[in-house]
């Protein structure tokens, strides 16, 4: 099908290269477009963060204040979550899932292309809010009512924000249906549910979560749009609506969203560590099923974002207990990864550095989660910089480091070339150093009483010291990302050829050539365990593997 489209359209373009990508329904091309564009948004959202940190480097600065500051924090959060994190994971998933299960493509290739381009349109609409009169949305990425309602955010920017999120949400929904159908139906011969790669397991859990929660946020946003444009007042107390109802709907999606982001990164780390430890994952089943456990329990914990709303001790207590429950499957994963290192033959190439770094730093975010989930303690910490620090530990320490591990790990597969190891290590050490400098002091700032989303503060001394350190850290992270970009661009063009399986890895994607052919595989070996390539190497008599 793809071939026919290509032939018809070619003549209108000089060499057809652009059109070949735009009209492609190949999961690998779609995956790469997702990855590239998400990365562009990462740089964009990161620049907003740098501006925020500049403004807060010292007290009483005038770089971005009031409305423009609120627009920066709102759009930074929204862009990072919806235009960077989710699409990047969708990209990696698109690229890898069919290869890992030995399929030729996704189950619905054209639906796949549709999700991609709906996401692009959504991104344009969302970012278009910067051009609207009155500027981009300013009500925070949570868009609490009535602040995001017609009286307090009359500008068009808020409407574009809603519409953009609607489109991006539809894209994710279509994508998750596609992933589930693909994984259920298109696994190669012999790949039973206990033999699918752990990354694929994590995509199953993620897709289920997306299917169950995106419709809820879509409904909430639709009602908000009606409140703004059609005179209803679902969420407007003045008209008899409930501002708290919006929060329930938002966080019913918003908490699972954290796991929508971090589960695939868990999956990546579960693939990378065994390869560089030359061991199987410790407790395959525990790791696989804890993904499902996390997904399901994470749907009943949303109230921990609302402890200060005044829900009462009964509800607060319930959400505290549920949140502590979800810590258990998460903790299991961390311990399984740690145990996989035990007695391994560990080689610290860049993917492994990022993977182990992820385990070490995500642990901190998980543990500070145990602190904030205690609701009386959260009375102090809620909406303070402690929360900002906590969730950046889970999302950068957890997801972003995991993503970097994956990008380095599969770089040779996607490009056919090897990245530069020296630059990769610089990237890792600078990034984690910058990350720690940025976010460790933010815990303290929160405890000292600095609320989040403020454009200035009026205290000196330690307050300014911590803020300044945080700003310096943020710029170090930016430098590290620059190194990453240089590495990718240079290596993609002129890195050494990698061969199909440079890591002597375990899973089927390494059986395809690098980069894989349009049809992925000429043949797929029968899968008899969750490490088919290792089985193959042993069968072929590789003595060194013995």
């Amino acid at each position: 099908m793809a071939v026919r489209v290509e032939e018809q359209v070619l003549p209108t373009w000089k060499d057809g290269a652009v059109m070949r990508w735009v009209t492609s329904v190949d999961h690998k091309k779609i995956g790469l477009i997702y990855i590239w564009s998400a990365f562009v948004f990462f740089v964009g959202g990161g620049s907003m963060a740098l501006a925020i940190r500049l403004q807060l480097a010292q007290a009483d600065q005038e770089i971005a204040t009031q409305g423009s500051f609120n627009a920066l924090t709102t759009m930074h959060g929204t862009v990072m979550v919806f235009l960077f994190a989710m699409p990047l994971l969708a990209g990696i998933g698109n690229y890898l899932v069919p290869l890992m299960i030995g399929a030729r493509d996704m189950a619905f290739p054209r639906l796949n292309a549709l999700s991609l381009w709906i996401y692009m349109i959504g991104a344009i609409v969302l970012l278009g809010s910067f051009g609207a009169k009155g500027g981009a949305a300013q009500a925070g990425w949570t868009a609490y009512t009535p602040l995001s309602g017609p009286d307090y955010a009359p500008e068009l920017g808020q409407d574009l924000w809603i519409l953009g999120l609607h489109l991006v949400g539809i894209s994710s929904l279509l994508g998750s249906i596609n992933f589930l159908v693909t994984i259920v139906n298109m696994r190669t011969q012999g790949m039973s549910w206990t033999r699918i790669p752990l990354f694929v397991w994590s995509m199953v859990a993620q897709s289920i979560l997306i299917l169950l929660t995106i419709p809820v946020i879509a409904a909430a946003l639709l009602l908000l749009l009606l409140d703004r444009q059609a005179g209803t007042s679902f969420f407007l107390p003045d008209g008899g609506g409930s501002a708290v109802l919006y929060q329930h709907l938002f966080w019913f999606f918003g908490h699972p969203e954290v796991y929508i982001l971090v589960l695939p990164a868990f999956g990546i780390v579960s693939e990378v560590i065994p390869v560089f430890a030359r061991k199987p994952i410790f407790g395959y089943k525990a790791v696989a099923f804890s993904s499902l456990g996390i997904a399901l329990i994470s749907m009943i914990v949303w109230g921990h974002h609302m402890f200060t709303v005044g829900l009462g001790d009964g509800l607060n207590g319930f959400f505290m207990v549920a949140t502590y429950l979800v810590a258990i499957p998460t903790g299991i994963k961390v311990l399984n990864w740690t145990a996989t290192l035990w007695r391994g033959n560990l080689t610290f190439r860049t993917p492994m550095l990022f993977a182990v770094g992820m385990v070490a730093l995500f642990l901190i975010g998980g543990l500070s989660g145990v602190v904030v989930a205690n609701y009386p303690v959260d009375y102090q910490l809620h909406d303070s910089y402690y929360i900002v620090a906590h969730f950046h530990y889970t999302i950068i320490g957890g997801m972003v480091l995991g993503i970097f591990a994956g990008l380095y790990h599969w770089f040779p597969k996607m490009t056919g070339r090897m990245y530069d190891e020296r630059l990769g290590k610089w990237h890792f050490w600078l990034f984690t150093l910058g990350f720690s400098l940025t976010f460790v002091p933010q815990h303290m700032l929160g405890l000292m009483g600095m609320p989040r989303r403020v454009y200035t503060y009026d205290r000196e001394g330690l307050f300014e010291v911590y803020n300044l350190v945080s700003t310096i850290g943020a710029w170090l992270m930016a430098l590290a990302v620059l190194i990453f970009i240089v590495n990718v661009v240079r290596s993609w063009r002129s890195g050494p050829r990698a061969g199909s399986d440079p890591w002597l890895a375990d899973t089927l994607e390494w059986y395809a050539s690098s980069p894989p052919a349009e049809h992925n595989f000429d043949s797929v070996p029968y899968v008899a365990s969750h490490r088919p390539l290792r089985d193959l190497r042993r069968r072929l008599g590789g003595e060194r593997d013995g």
Partner: protein
Amino acid sequence: MSRRRLLLAVLLVGVALALPHAGLAQYNGGIAPPDSATEGGSQINDLYWIVMGVTIAIFLLVEGAIVWFVLRFRRRPGTSFEADAPQIHGNTRLELVWTVVPFLILVAILVVTIVKVPSVEARPDAGDESLVVRVAGHQFYWEYTYGNGVVSVDTLRLPVDRPVRLELVAYDVIHSWWVPELTGKRDAIPGTTNTLDFTVTRIGSFRGQCAELCGVQHAVMRTTVEVVPPDAFDGWLAAEAKAQAAGASELGRQTWEGVCAKCHGLDGKGGYGPAIAGNSLLADPAGLAALLAEGRDNPQVDGYMPAVSGSWPGDGRQLEALLAYIASTPELAPAGADGQGG
């Protein structure tokens, strides 16, 4: 080697000199919530340290294991990358242990928490005379109203050692009342009334700040709590009631600085809102009252002015005080309008 050691020494001395200078003592260094001036707040701090203790122990254990494994099991010289390590697929008993043990630890934390919860917000017993103050969140100020009708903007005066109940409401968007040295925060949500109970046990002045994003000037929606001896408090409350009734209080200045100045600037020369110094509306009681009660969003002018007077006393004393303050402040008053309303 020696150069590195020198560098380290310089660094340590630098840090040692910088930290006290930076006010480490004042803020606890930020390792825990500030020492609390209420019983409930102290309970929260206790809980914080209990949970912190457990998480620090887990942190050291797991992080220690990671570091140890990384050092101990890194590839030895002479071993090839692809050399197999022992193929350990798991250990059911071990995995069971590290599922059950964290579970038990969390149950322990939960039990301690639930035991402590009642004292976090010790509610006055029935019949107990607790002081009730109504707290109204507005873009971008706090209005405090006492039982006898005394109002105060952004500054809350409280007696020490007497139970206090704050009744939190909001007139526009959601705000959150937070004074870290007293106790945790509580949201002020339009359409509902929340309560926050505490008893302050220490005389002093405590600063706080709105914690829920409420719009452009959320960052400067600050508040101060002045805690004084009970008799001083009673004296002040009675005197202030008389002064406000007679129009001889500081309420006008408080209102200008707390309410209007955050958007229009202290000198009325403009900020988020337009310059209004000398604006004729500032001497027009009926016109100003309507503007403050309804707000304004002129499409030609950037931004909007919210209705700001929703919680003001019904007898009009706050508006009168504001008008009097403006009239008596030369840089704000419209020319030739002092004294009589235009």
